[in-house]
């Protein structure tokens, strides 16, 4: 059984159809990349999978670990093991990162009928993961993402991913706005989460990130449909030749 099975997914926002029939299958242990020009629907796909209600699913099915994903609320999807790293993580003044992480961890544990994580174990966990992402512990007492640079925000996303231990991690243009050093640190974090129990979906515009997070499969999204799939070499080809050379959705490879 695939970890994530998307069949003919269609979605719209503001009455305009963005996803026009997506088909992907991701197995545990695999890293998939979705690339595409601006406006192709990459972020829409990520947001729809995460459960953002501003997007309307107009057709198709998505199964996650055998369950009907589209029937679950955003918080239920997170508790079932789906994690999305946002492209533009929002700031939440007044909620400390520490409080937020603890609330998230305990919400997921509660969902699985586990007891709350005790304070000591929580701190130990955070210390370990923040070291991995080269983040100073001081961020814990600051409000979520407040005053964080672009790089820090993205690292905070991957930190959360590391702490919440998802079955499927979706990275929505995690490399946008990052310099090489930040990208390396983020990639190190993501790579440390590779495991036979976990699937990773990397949504990206540029091939560069994929030098660091090497994908098993690459899919090209254009006008709301996947028009070509391949392995990591497809990404290199796109880098060299751009998106223009690919056939339009009408003539699918």
């Amino acid at each position, binding site marked *: 059984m695939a970890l994530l099975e998307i069949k003919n997914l269609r979605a719209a926002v503001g009455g305009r159809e963005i996803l026009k029939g997506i088909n992907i299958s991701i197995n545990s242990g695999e890293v998939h990349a979705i690339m595409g020009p601006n406006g192709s629907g990459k972020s829409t796909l990520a947001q729809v999978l*995460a*459960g*953002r209600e*501003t997007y309307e699913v107009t057709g198709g099915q998505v199964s996650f670990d055998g369950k009907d994903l589209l029937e679950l*609320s*955003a*918080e239920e*999807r*997170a*508790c079932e093991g789906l*994690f*999305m790293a*946002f492209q533009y*993580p*929002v700031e*939440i*003044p*007044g*909620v400390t990162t520490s409080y*937020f992480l603890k*609330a*998230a961890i305990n*919400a*997921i544990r509660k*969902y699985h009928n586990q007891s709350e994580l005790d304070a000591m174990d929580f701190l130990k966990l955070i210390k370990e993961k923040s070291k991995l992402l080269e983040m100073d512990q001081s961020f814990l007492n600051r*409000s*979520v993402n407040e005053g964080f640079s672009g790089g820090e925000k993205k690292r905070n996303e991957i930190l*959360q991913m590391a702490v*919440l231990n998802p079955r499927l991690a979706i990275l929505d243009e995690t490399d946008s706005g990052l310099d090489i050093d930040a990208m390396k640190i983020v990639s190190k974090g993501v790579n440390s989460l590779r495991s036979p129990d976990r699937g990773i979906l990397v949504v990206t515009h540029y091939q560069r990130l994929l030098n660091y997070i090497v994908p098993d499969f690459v899919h090209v999204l254009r006008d709301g449909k996947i028009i070509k799939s391949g392995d990591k070499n497809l990404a290199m080809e796109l880098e060299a030749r751009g998106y223009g050379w690919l056939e339009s959705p009408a003539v699918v490879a």
Partner: protein
Amino acid sequence: MIQTADLSNNLEFFAQLATDTPSYGADWLESLRREALSEFLRLGFPTTHDEQWRLTNVAPILRTAFVRPGPRSATRQQLAHLIGTVSLRAIDSHELVFVNGEFWPEFSSTKGLSIHVGTISEAIHRNDQTSELIARNLGRQTAAVVDGFAALNVAGFRDGAFIHVPDETIITQPIHLLFLTISGDEPVIVQPRILIVAGHGVQATFVQSYAGAGETANLANAACELCIGANARIEMVKLQRETPQAFHVAHDHVRLRQGANFQSLVINIGGALVRNDLAVILDGPGAEATLNGLTLSTGRQHIDNHTMLDHACDHCPSHELYKCLLGGSSSGVFKGKILVRPGAQKTDAKQTSKSVLLSDEAVMNSQPQLEIYADDVKCTHGSTTGPLDDEQLFYLRSRGIEEAQARALLTYAFARDVLYRTWHHGLRSYLETLIVAELHRLHLDQAT
């Protein structure tokens, strides 16, 4: 007791309530009161035709047949219970308790305080430097009386609190001025007054609280004057926690000398109809003022906060952050005026107003008012009004946090953002605990 069915008679009615208040043998106070009374009769009460009162209709106040509370008009038992809920003794605060305009020493505590903290009447009676200080400052912070309410207070306040902090004195514990309004079957009118004179280099924290008991629609018409000496560092917290039926109108005037640093926090939780007028004048170069506000409203409350920051001198920074959480059919007003006078170069003024509407019927009206007469200044203002931020909500939910909990979290966070700017740590913790409890009690943490 006079009925006030006819609004046109009510100036005389209120003037009657204002006469017959003692001047404690001070001629200056007697003539100040006389002037104020004639100002009151000339100005009348503000109406919605007055620009500054366009959004707040005081007719409900004018229609109420208030009575003057009698002396010692509450039982000790009533008071002990009420005071227990609003006292700040638990955070080691000094405390003066006034009930219906009268000072109750048996409930007050100024132990260990070496400075002069007491009533205006007592200070006048001393007939020394202290009483000279009062004569020089009381009712003198503005050139002209602002409106009918302010005039009425000067004309008719019974007694009030007077604090004099001498130069270079540092007071670590907060000084709490608690004004309670207790009524029986008829609505009462009380006019609390505060005068604080702080010398240069002073560091102190003051709290003024307004609360009460009784089912009637009482009126607290309050006035506070705060004179801050050069390089002093003063924090003033106002806690308006009147009963749900009460009317509360207040005029606060603050004057800062050179290099002084002042932070104000105005918290509104209670009251049916509330208007706070806070005017701060930066009257010396390098003086700095921070004005923070947090209003929680629900039901049919109407809470109006007007602020005025007068940049009279150069190199003065000012910051304003006023936040409102409105539920039910409540309405709120924020009007922040910034005046930058000619010569007030290098002014750096920043004003932010943020309101969260937790129900479809709640309404918020927020306006800046800038009058700038100097050319080398920075003045920014921003305002947002809307429901809880959808991006923030989704972010929390995407991490597994249930929607109801996410909403509560964001509501507390919104409020806490103002509270954690409080300088005094003990006070900050007290306020955070209080607001969390109030948000819960008012169901503002569960609104859709």
